[in-house]
């Protein structure tokens, strides 16, 4: 009759206890893990234990901040707004859509010479390149030279996918809205004869973009043939295969285009336009003096209250001029230090009472 009991027991979820089996108990293993006795570091957060952390943070951050700040301050940077919304601006005339092409020249002076490589940026403000539908409006396969995507671009490109029954190459809103001002820089010497400054077009895009992501469609030598059957984006003046004379910088692998296609994160952004390479160690790349910026003004931004800027900047180990990071480091470091002091006071004040608590225990 004990059989019935056994059965009953087993029903209840117990392991079957074979009468002839070995002594197998359900005793749990006595391991540190199973018994929740794992050795552990048990930090206790009190003023006394934490205040070193605050001081250490302060001591580390403030020097870093100072370093960054100094580095950032050493960077030369000049920014020239050529939107032309102010009536006084030479580019003011270009605001009207009738003047095409419109050229304007802006003169500026560099107080100090720019050493080393100088980066020339164009900056746009209030330009929402990060808008969701804008960001999506491209076809990476097409840009990668996929021939089928070339002629049949992705639906994401709508409504800049086809124009007059021809596929647009490159399709999409991003490409369509490509920045197409031309900026030229002249050093106005003493003899008032402007010397053009050599602007390097290549090397401004990411290497991977230029060599991996962006490719011209396959085909014959002639780029125009390769893009046969496509049409230029609506806003473009020239088709994509006429962006540059250099075949290595034309079509989809035009670096200006590639740079533009890398959508900016924030509505105020700059994009690398040209490089001004240092010629030799003796002369500064851009000596102090008067310069003029010749703009072929094609790109209308004033409709949407945008701004256009040209930026010349040297770079340091940490990139372009960025005063914020240094200040932030100093600020965080100081605050941390300050809190550390507060904790020190508190610790001092409450140590006695915590001692008494100790005693009562």
């Amino acid at each position: 009759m004990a059989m019935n009991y056994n059965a009953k027991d087993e029903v209840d979820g117990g392991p079957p206890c074979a009468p002839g089996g070995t002594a197998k108990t359900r005793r749990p293993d006595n391991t540190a893990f199973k018994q929740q006795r794992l050795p552990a570091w048990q930090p206790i957060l009190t003023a006394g234990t934490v205040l070193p952390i605050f001081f250490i943070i302060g001591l580390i951050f403030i020097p870093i901040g100072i370093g960054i700040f100094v580095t950032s301050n050493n960077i030369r940077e000049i920014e020239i707004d050529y939107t032309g919304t102010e009536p006084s601006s030479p580019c003011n005339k270009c605001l009207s859509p009738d003047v095409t092409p419109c050229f304007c020249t802006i003169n500026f002076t560099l107080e100090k010479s720019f050493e080393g490589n100088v980066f020339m940026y164009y900056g746009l403000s209030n330009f929402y390149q990060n808008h969701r539908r804008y960001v999506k409006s491209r076809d990476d396969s097409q840009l990668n030279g996929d021939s089928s995507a070339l002629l049949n671009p992705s639906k994401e490109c709508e409504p800049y996918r086809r124009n007059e029954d021809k596929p647009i190459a490159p399709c999409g809103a991003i490409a369509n809205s490509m920045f197409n001002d031309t900026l030229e820089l002249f050093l106005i010497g003493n003899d008032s004869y402007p010397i053009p400054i050599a602007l390097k077009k290549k090397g401004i895009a990411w290497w991977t973009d230029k060599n991996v992501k962006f490719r011209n469609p396959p085909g014959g030598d002639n780029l125009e043939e390769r893009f046969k059957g496509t049409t230029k984006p609506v806003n473009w003046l020239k088709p994509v295969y006429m962006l540059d004379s250099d075949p290595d910088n034309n079509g989809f692998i035009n670096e200006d285009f590639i740079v533009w296609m890398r959508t900016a994160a924030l509505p105020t952004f700059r994009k690398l336009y040209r490089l001004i390479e240092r010629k030799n160690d003796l002369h500064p790349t851009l000596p102090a003096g008067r310069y003029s910026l010749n703009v072929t003004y094609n790109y209308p931004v004033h409709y949407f209250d945008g701004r256009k800027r040209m930026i010349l900047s040297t770079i340091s180990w940490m990139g372009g001029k960025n005063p914020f990071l240094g200040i932030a480091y100093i600020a965080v470091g100081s605050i941390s230090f300050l809190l550390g002091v507060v904790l020190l006071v508190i610790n001092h004040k409450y140590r006695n009472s915590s001692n008494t608590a100790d005693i009562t225990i």
Partner: protein
Amino acid sequence: MEREPAGTEEPRPPGRRRRREGRTRTVRSNLLPPPGAEDPAAGAAKGERRRRRGCAQHLADNRLKTTKYTLLSFLPKNLFEQFHRPANVYFVFIALLNFVPAVNAFQPGLALAPVLFILAITAFRDLWEDYSRHRSDHKINHLGCLVFSREEKKYVNRFWKEIHVGDFVRLRCNEIFPADILLLSSSDPDGLCHIETANLDGETNLKRRQVVRGFSELVSEFNPLTFTSVIECEKPNNDLSRFRGCIIHDNGKKAGLYKENLLLRGCTLRNTDAVVGIVIYAGHETKALLNNSGPRYKRSKLERQMNCDVLWCVLLLVCMSLFSAVGHGLWIWRYQEKKSLFYVPKSDGSSLSPVTAAVYSFLTMIIVLQVLIPISLYVSIEIVKACQVYFINQDMQLYDEETDSQLQCRALNITEDLGQIQYIFSDKTGTLTENKMVFRRCTVSGVEYSHDANAQRLARYQEADSEEEEVVPRGGSVSQRGSIGSHQSVRVVHRTQSTKSHRRTGSRAEAKRASMLSKHTAFSSPMEKDITPDPKLLEKVSECDKSLAVARHQEHLLAHLSPELSDVFDFFIALTICNTVVVTSPDQPRTKVRVRFELKSPVKTIEDFLRRFTPSCLTSGCSSIGSLAANKSSHKLGSSFPSTPSSDGMLLRLEERLGQPTSAIASNSYSSQADNWASELAQEQESERELRYEAESPDEAALVYAARAYNCVLVERLHDQVSVELPHLGRLTFELLHTLGFDSVRKRMSVVIRHPLTDEINVYTKGADSVVMDLLQPCSSVDARGRHQKKIRSKTQNYLNLYAAEGLRTLCIAKRVLSKEEYACWLQSHLEAESSLENSEELLFQSAIRLETNLHLLGATGIEDRLQDGVPETISKLRQAGLQIWVLTGDKQETAVNIAYACKLLDHDEEVITLNATSQEACAALLDQCLRYVQSRGLQRAPEKTKGKVSMRFSSLCPPSASTASGRRPSLVIDGRSLAYALEKNLEDKFLFLAKQCRSVLCCRSTPLQKSMVVKLVRSKLKAMTLAIGDGANDVSMIQVADVGVGISGQEGMQAVMASDFAVPKFRYLERLLILHGHWCYSRLANMVLYFFYKNTMFVGLLFWFQFFCGFSASAMIDQWYLIFFNLLFSSLPPLVTGVLDRDVPANVLLTNPQLYKSGQNMEEYRPRTFWFNMADATFQSLVCFSIPYLAYYDSNVDLFTWGTPIVTIALLTFLLHLGIETKTWTWLNWITCGFSVLLFFTVALIYNASCATCYPPSNPYWTMQALLGDPVFYLTCLMTPVAALLPRLFFRSLQGSVFPTQLQLARQLTRKSPRRCSAPKETFAQGRLPKDSGTEHSSGRTVKTSVPLSQPSWHTQQPVCSLEASGEPSTVDMSMPLREHTLLEGLSALSPMSSAPGEAVLRSPGGCPEESKVRAASTGRVTPLSSLFSLPTFSLLNWISSWSLVSRLGSVLQFSRTEQLADGQAGRGVPVQPHSGRSGLQGPDHRLLIGASSRRSQ
């Protein structure tokens, strides 16, 4: 089988009616051809078919099916169930939203992935659970039993599931009934069988069942083929205690069916070789299963709270989305007309209206911000809970060596509820106690026999175990420890033997035997049986025995003995026979020992009676004895059999006959016995050692075993005779004239026997001391004998007090010698009472009272009701942890109260409010009274408290106890009947309020339903977290209703375990389960939930802030892959590990400081406040984590996703550091997972960013991470941002740790600082200097101490007598008061002259020392004199008389009696007994009794 009477073939109007009403079911034998079939041969097959069909249609067969799914239905059904969870619907909705092109934010397939993942996990778990259910069902369904087969004309083995209604089932001894069966035949000649209902209600005693009347007379064996009767009975219902129906025989005769005829599924057949019955209810229609309503889906409190916060998150999400949508609308409105180069028109070239754009944006925002609703939270919680369950299961200290079982978590989703329990509802029998009673000591005729050897023996059982047992600090005084501790481990030994031998074949034979015994006999562990007799007493017994044996044939036998010896003799006879113990022999397990005397064969006819009983009638000269038979037979069948007309007629005839003296029928039983006796002695003695006793209550068995130790052996009990064997006298057979069974009202039982030696009619009464002492023969103080008697009584009373103080259950044994005339007269009236149709119960009661008066006190016994290991310690720990413990027991009040004292649930120095009401109105009035009393106490206490200067601290906190923050809250004892009234709608609030004020509540005599109602009430009305713990099926409903149900495994019944969420081997494991694991689980999960909310809010915050810079276009700078998998992959593991392993306070500190548990009760870890604080912090952190990269990259040539990736990295680092701040214990796993997370993120990012140049539009992440890794600014921002974001939190935490630490933090700090002192006593904690200090337990203790001296002066001024009490001398105040009085105060003042009539009774104004007074309230029903007698165990006769007029008018009594305040500590605790004896001389027995009762509480 059931055939609904209105079959299709034979429309029978009455049957149709019945069917419509649906009240009855008709059962016929399956072996018969169905009634509608004309041709029996054809009908057989047809009937078989129809039967099967019929069963399928109407009746459940015996198959048990608790699974939810089948293979086919699993997927749809499970999905359907999963979609009941709103979160799942939400997530699927979001994922599907992605398929709408206009609003999609992510690649649709990608968005579905997490949802599918989660659904799959849940589905898998459900599948597994269902499979294990299926397995257990399968096992039960395939148990075998013998079913009569028509084809083979014999019983064949069938599976349980193949049994149908109408089948005949034959069961052998110790088999379990597969269905509800009507008993038709038993191997027992009396047509009885015994069953054990442990599986149903946890009671291990045997219950008698009776063959259906009409079948019991069958001489030959029952043949199912000849069974042609039809059974009509109730529809299946879940009332275990009721069954009505009738059986209609072929000849049209009807016989009633009662509960006594039904064998319930799950019970075990005992003590009977075999029974045959017909199945009435099968499968899910059996009463056992109907009682098992399916388990409620439990959702933990934390989860409810979390869901509420999830709703807040949803609201937040909607707000953010709305805000975004409006922003986007405005943006569109602003830019679309302006030829913005970046404006993208609709695909057809037309421009979007701002409103449409806003709507789209809203939906897209919801998709993008969906992370706010933590989908990973649900998965993580499931995982964490599973791990918590694993750890609880694996805890070695919850493993019970003896039963080889560890704690089982059966519910996977409520582990954290364990940390928030406020109320514990406990069963008593088998939960607090082991349901094993041991005879400890006794006093006979005023002489105490301390049984030291016995105590030593019990101590040895203890020692055997104590080596293994871990050292648990034990509270209490030494004497208490001795008495409680001594019995704790005895079961251990017994258990080990039983289970191990059960499992190992090669184990010792002895152990095997022990296991056999324990399996088959209730209440008979070696510890209970082997009682070491006291040498002195043993000597006396044998002396009596010898002298009686010598003088056995002389006249006036007992006169040869000294009064003391005769008392000793009678005492043991009473112990042996005054019970209902059934004797069994182990050779044939649990079969009745039957030594058949010709004369003692079952009484069949009236002539038989007369033949047997007239001789004694003759000698007695009384004429009514013969009718004894009638009453006896009805006794045997139980009171639920109504007296039938035939028996009335018989009575009449009897009385006629008895009128005329008949003289000739001689040959009485004793002589024949004496002849047989010698020859039988030899064989009997062989088996004598092996006899075992089956008792209805364990204390009966304990007494019988005790008597056996004194060689006074009960060898046989039949329904009309009891045989006792003595070494010298040999077998004595007592004719059992009458048994007045135990009932809770009389609190005693009596047997009327005819003494074989003296031929006298004796009444032996055994009962609660409170009752029996009242019923003693008043002894005149004139003659020496009377004085001697008085002395004996007072001595006995003293010993009784002593026993009670030791926590022993006391019983008084008394005797009365009836003259034949007296007996005859009594019998006459008793028979009348029995035969009376209306209020026969009351008449019987009165008749019993008439018999049980003028008793002669023999002695008293002290029985130890053995508590389980460590119960008092556990209870006191749980109390310290702020848990309120209620005991709900089906047991009688005294037992319950006794146990409650023993396990420290009730304290001797606290007051006890006893609620015994017999009517609704009385109950209401009583409740009002008690409430007013308690409230008035609270009011008076208030000023005292402020004086005591301790009050402010704890009155403000600890909400459940705030209203009654007094030092000693009263305890409430309520019986089942009053409970039923109190649970009525109109009274429940009052009851609850009263109960809430009480420290502990004891509900006696409560039914399973009441238990669950109480739990439900507390749960719903007090909104408290409840835990129910029990071991029997009677606790199942309570276990199911409570928030957390705990079953005690290891006991025999497994129903409680099956219904429970957690199964523990013993009660004491509850402490560790709650205080340690509960706390950990709660704090871990609470912290993890908070962390997840923080994490998601913070993450979503980043996205939201970005909307301000992208025209609210729902653009995301974070790659969609990161967005979707961030929560699942990169940031999920470390919080999981912390959630599983974090130990906020080390185990030993938690266990030594149970009050830390209160943090869980008060939800300190996870409150709405904490939640919002957390959300605010998350907002701040996200703002920092957004703005620093924003400013750092402002006006740079960074592209969208090259800027977004650092933000993700920063977020990840911030999350990990945040977790680091919140993690209390860092194990290597924490380190590894944190490192792993970071590593995983970078690895995945690098691989992902290198994998495909043109894939994953629009983010186009190719080479992003690689480029970033070469950028110093990336490192600089990633270093600074997390630090800046977390500075405030770190600062706040350290400030909190120093300036205003919580209890838990303090505990942590202290362990750190002084690891050696981590086991310091808990008081220090409670006195912590924190405002949050919730250690009320200790503080309250202090209040009391301060308040008492404060209030003392006022007593002196008011009542000089109070000084007596203050110095510790006990006195009593008894007041009886009418309930009609409106307030207690009025009542007291109105009654004061009356109640001060007894010289020493003192009335104090209630303002004096209210906390010491004890309220005993009782109200009587219709028959006031009766109920007032039994309602108060400590009732004082004088007061009773003085208040008689009031009582009888109002029908209720409220009695206040003061217990002395020894506990105040000034007076010695151990000497409460002595003062009484001196004082009680004036008062008489009644007063002494009262003092005795109250002094018991002083311990």
